Every structure is written in C-alpha cells, then in structure tokens.
C-alpha cells in the first residue's frame, strides 16, 4: 500500500503548488462524501489528499453585484441556511437538500458534486439552469467557465491537470424570476436520481416568460441543456401547448441507459414529466 499524506493548505497558492507537484497523484478533499468512500473502496489510490476547507477563497457566501458567490467548499447545509440564496435560488437550494441525508448535506459541497462528475449529480442541473459560473484556478492562472461546460462524461471533467474550482457565481435575478429542481427516485429519500430536472425562468408583468433555462440530469452521460425546452417556454405563459413542447423537447434530448433504477423508456417518459412540473413550480415562484 502506498503511503498517503494529508495536507490542509491555508492559501490557494499553496494548494495549487501542491497539486502541481503531486502531478496527478493528489486528490482534493472538500466534503469528502464521495472521496472517502472511493478511498475506502480502493477505487482511487492518491498519494496526497489536499483538504481545501482552510482556503479563504473557497469558504463562505458573499453578495456580489446583486448576485451570490458561493465558495466551492461550502456545504449544502450552509447554503440552505443562507437567506439570500434561499430567496434568490430556491431551486439550487432544494437540489442541494436532496443530496444524501442530513449528515451528508452537512459536509457535501457544490464543488464536489460538480467535480465528482456524476451524470446524476443533483446540484448540477439546478446550477446549469441558474446559468451559474465557476471560477477555476490552476498553474496557468485563473479562468471562468460555465458550470455546464465542466462535466464531460461519467467521472470526467474539462478541468486541466492541477486546476481547482474555487467558487460559483449566481448572477443577480431580474424581477419575477424563479427556479426549481425536481428529482425522481423510487423511494422518498436517500437515493440517486433516475431523472433530475432544473428550470429557471423570468416572467414579464403580464406573466409571459421572457427568459428560461432548462437542464436535465441522469438521462445522458452528462447533464443536458435543453435549448429547445427553453425556447418552448419563452414567449408563452406556460400554457398547455408550451408544456407539450417542453415535454417533447425533454424526451427528444434524452440518451439514457437502463439500470436497476429505471429503464431507458421510463427515464425518457419521466424526463418530460419532471421538466413540465419543474417549470410550473419555477413559474409559481416567479409570480411570488
């Protein structure tokens, strides 16, 4: 067994340097709810664990230009207790509160949920619907990326060797905006998504949808951004015809697998239903 080392750098510079020196033999530790399981199961054998929770830039939630910047090591439970995030992004918050148990939510982070690269990650469709950006720091400096561009396949991300996701930015909300995330699982709690659907939208004073984003999880190797689904909502009051179009767009986009949680046919059907229901909840929240 190769010896494992644990480090908890107090600065981003140190963490980036450690990651570069380790050259692929290091794993970042935030909440640890995936990492420690993978470690115990022998799925990964890193030589170095870099605990990123003592790095100031990765901690806390800050208001910025009317939006919110959430550190990548902030737990879901802390986001759920943040009045600003709950008020502006209830869909993102409810997605985080569907991840595992109370115990898991006390540790698990948005950064880990994204970088673990699961197609079924609950927070990710909600973050994509929110048009969230992430800041990435690595040996070549700092860059910003859309959350939707990070996961490239099961367990795979577009992050280059040595890069760290340090925070997420949720932009300011126009008036009459709302978001929602729905997940289907065969039981009530403590399971992995069969399908997840996130919707964020803005209405005008007459209740007509002027902007929308729709994202699906667990129905393809990566989360899906439904351009057609969003187009179906924009210009409508989410009437029956718009809902039919959204449903059809969701079903058409799905490329799911059959596994113990659901068949291909079932996932496709449920994707349409969840997209519609999430859109309706987002609409109600936008109407406030």
């Amino acid at each position, binding site marked *: 067994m190769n010896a494992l080392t644990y480090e908890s750098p107090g600065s981003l510079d140190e963490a980036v340097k450690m990651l570069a020196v380790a050259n692929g033999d290091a794993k970042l530790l935030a909440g*640890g*709810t995936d990492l*420690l399981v993978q470690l*115990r199961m022998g799925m990964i054998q890193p030589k170095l664990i870099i605990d990123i929770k003592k790095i100031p830039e990765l901690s806390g939630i800050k208001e910025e230009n009317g939006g919110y910047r959430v550190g990548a090591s902030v737990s879901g439970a802390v986001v759920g207790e943040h009045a600003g995030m709950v008020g502006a992004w209830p869909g993102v918050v409810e997605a985080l509160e569907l991840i595992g*148990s*109370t*115990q*898991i939510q006390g540790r698990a982070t948005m950064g880990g949920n994204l970088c673990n690269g699961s197609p079924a990650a609950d927070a990710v469709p909600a973050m994509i619907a929110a048009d969230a950006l992430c800041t990435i720091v690595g040996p070549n400096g700092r860059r910003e990326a859309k959350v939707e561009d990070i996961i490239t396949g099961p367990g795979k991300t577009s992050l280059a060797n040595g890069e760290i996701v340090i925070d997420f930015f949720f932009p300011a909300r126009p008036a009459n905006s709302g978001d929602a995330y729905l997940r289907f699982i065969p039981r009530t709690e403590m399971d992995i998504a069969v399908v997840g659907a996130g919707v964020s939208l803005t209405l005008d004073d007459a209740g007509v949808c002027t902007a929308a984003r729709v994202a699906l999880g667990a129905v393809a190797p990566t989360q899906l951004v439904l351009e057609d689904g969003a187009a179906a909502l924009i210009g409508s009051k989410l009437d029956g015809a718009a809902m039919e179009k959204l449903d059809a767009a969701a079903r058409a986009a799905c490329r799911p697998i059959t596994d113990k949680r659901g068949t291909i046919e079932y996932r496709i059907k449920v994707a349409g239903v969840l997209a519609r229901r999430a859109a309706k909840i987002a609409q109600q929240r936008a109407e406030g």
Partner: protein
Amino acid sequence: MAKMHVSTTVNGEPTEFLCEPQQTILDVLRDELRLTGSKEGCSTGDCGACSVTMDGRLVCSCLVLGAEAEGHEIETIEGMADGDTLHPLQQKFLERAALQCGICTPGFLIAAKSLLERNPNPSETEVRYWLAGNLCRCTGYDKIIRAVLECAADMRGASA
C-alpha cells in the same frame, strides 16, 4: 509516514491524538480514544450509525478524516448524558422502547438531538426526513419517531 498530531475538542474536553492520514474520526474515536458509542455500520455514509456533530453540525464520522478534526469540536453519544442524568431523548427512548438491538441508537439520538436544537417543534414529516439518513434494521422506526415527537413536546413544556 509519521502519524499526524491532531488537537481537537471531544465532548467539551481538549483532546489530542495521533492518527494515520487515512484514518477517519470514527476510527480515531473508537480505536484511539476508546469512545466506542459511535458505531460503524456501512462506512460509506449511508446508515448514520456513526453520527456525531462537528462544530454543532450533524455529520457521519466515517466520512470525516481524523486529521480534519484539527481545531474543531466533536460531540459524541458519550457526551449526551449529564453525568448520571440521561438526556431527555435518551430517557424517552428507554421509556418508549425506541430501540431493539441498539446498534443504530447512538446515531439516532445524536441526530434527533441535533434536530431538536434547531427545531423544537418538528412535524412528524420533518422528523422522518431529518432521520432519513439513520437506518434501523430491527425496524423500530415508528417507536423512534414517536419517542422523538413526544420528547420534543415534553422539552417544550419544560421550557415554557
């Protein structure tokens, strides 16, 4: 690899220990500090038998490294009673037979205490969701939920 030296607080007592980097705080509690009340069930964060609080936040101790405890405050089942006086939840679990084999009980008690500290008047649904990450394979859920609700009512009455 030399062992790591960690300074932490366990049940209000400043505590120091040595641990390997891969050891969880559950391993440390049980094997180094001999606090064996926290149980190892699944070791993957699914069963809640190892529940403790870290800085007041409910966590699975099997998913926290011992090294991560540096500078933090851990509360375990051993710190729940006040000397010989049981916590009201412990007393209620006894009175209402909210346990059978007892393996899940410390985790349920820690998790229920954490709930009542945040929400002294939870609905049955709130109790069930909060405790969804604590598994009881003797299937005593109904008695556990009733004990928590009854204890919450008693504690509200006592503080009124």
